[in-house]
């Protein structure tokens, strides 16, 4: 999340530079046709953001975003060329045409929308209230009289502090690891945290997997692509919708995020 914030700052400067690039793209033919012709789609994926994208034991990138890139390539009938990028340079890669798509846990915001286009959401990214299976809680009111852990200062902790009933006890821990430890050790049965953190807990703590109760703040991931590429955008959106319908996205979610896609997705 922090990297995203830093990025938007960098983008303000890049917005200016991108006008020149966009000028070029207007003269250019359409990107989808180029991809189909060369039989290769270049996709920028994260190298430092598990479980979306990180280096595996074979040093090759792996994660939700990499699988998504391969899925799109397969649907297009082309080969995926995976380019590992950092969150700071993922949009420049797109703008300089080194990549056709950015599938890099990219969040949408107005600054970014000025420089690039976004597909429909392809991955859930949110913070939510998680708890042991036995606990029933579907909204803030259901937390009345309960104790819930969160990392002090995190977005979900601040949302929680604003919204829970006065009888809810919020335990604030110093960092994510303390919050995770409090949940795994059973000191708290409810925590508010990000879905990627919950996924890593589910991986470590088989005895007490955290189950999503409700979403606190939603900021899903979108595929980024250059502006003025309606054909490519339409095709990517079509592939995502299809993957959503036939359960491919659900499979990815189960594999990398250790949870079903949220109902709102």
């Amino acid at each position, binding site marked *: 999340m922090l990297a995203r914030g830093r990025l938007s700052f960098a983008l303000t400067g890049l917005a200016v530079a991108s006008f020149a690039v966009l000028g070029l793209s207007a003269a250019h033919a359409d990107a989808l046709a180029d991809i189909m012709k060369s039989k290769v789609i270049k996709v920028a994926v994260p190298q430092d953001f598990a479980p979306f994208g990180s280096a595996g034991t074979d040093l090759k990138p792996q994660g939700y975003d990499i699988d998504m890139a391969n899925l799109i390539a397969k649907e297009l009938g082309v080969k995926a060329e995976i380019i590992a990028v950092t969150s700071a340079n993922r949009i420049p890669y797109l703008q300089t045409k080194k990549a056709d798509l950015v599938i890099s846990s990219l969040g949408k915001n107005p600054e970014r929308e000025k420089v690039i286009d976004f597909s429909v959401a392809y991955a859930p990214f949110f913070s939510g209230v998680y708890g042991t299976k036995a606990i029933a809680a579907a909204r803030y009111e259901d937390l009345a009289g309960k104790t819930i*852990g969160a990392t*002090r*200062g995190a977005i979900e*902790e*601040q949302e929680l502090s604003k919204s829970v009933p006065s009888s809810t006890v919020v*335990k*604030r*821990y*110093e960092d994510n690891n*303390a919050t995770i*430890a*409090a949940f795994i*050790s*059973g*000191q708290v049965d409810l925590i508010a945290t990000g879905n990627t953190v919950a996924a890593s807990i589910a991986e470590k703590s088989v005895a007490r997997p955290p189950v999503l109760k409700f979403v606190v703040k939603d900021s899903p991931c979108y595929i980024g692509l250059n502006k003025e590429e309606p054909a490519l955008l339409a095709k990517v959106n079509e592939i995502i919708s299809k993957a959503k319908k036939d359960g491919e996205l659900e499979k990815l979610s189960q594999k990398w995020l250790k949870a079903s896609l949220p109902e709102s997705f």
Partner: protein
Amino acid sequence: MTYKLQFAELLPYWDILLHGLIFTIVLTVISTVAGIAVGTAGAAARTFGPKWLDPIVAAYVEIVRNTPFIVQLFFIFFGLPAAGVKLTETTAAFLAMVFNLGAYSTEIIRAGIEAVPKAHIEAGESLAMSRLQILRWIVLKQAFQKVYPALASQIIIVMLGSAVVSQISAEDLTYAANYIQSRNFRAFEVYLVVALLYLLLAIAARAILRGVGRIIFPKA
């Protein structure tokens, strides 16, 4: 330096600070009383108790004195639940403090006991005082008088060390500081104020302990 101090930013959080301050004071007072009780028992056990008890108390003292307080605290709070002992963060904080001070004061008080001249104990025996009477009126009274300044210093150290309990979400003064800092990002002001509060607490504690010392040991 262009940083502008804005202490007014802290005002909306005064009740959280007050709550934290009270928690730290209560935590210190209770763990001081209980910790010194444990220390007295430990010291008496090592010097007057049965032989088999000595290595047990010695092990307790060495374990506590040779491990970091935060590790002891995390072990009690995050570790013990795996063994089925689940304590709230407040109980864990109190327990860790007593456990810690108990070990240090065992050694401090033992030093005082060993400094009591053998002849005084023999004098008590020749007056037909019971073992308990000798311990109470001859040994411990003199021992405490001798080590009182060292004990007072240890209490201050433990009070300041209690800041660590904020790490397990016990809501002490440091927890209040961290909480406020995570809300208004005024780290400079928050920690400055809290450092001053700790300083005042320490000065007040020293004054109180000196006063208590004068009452208990009128001649000293």
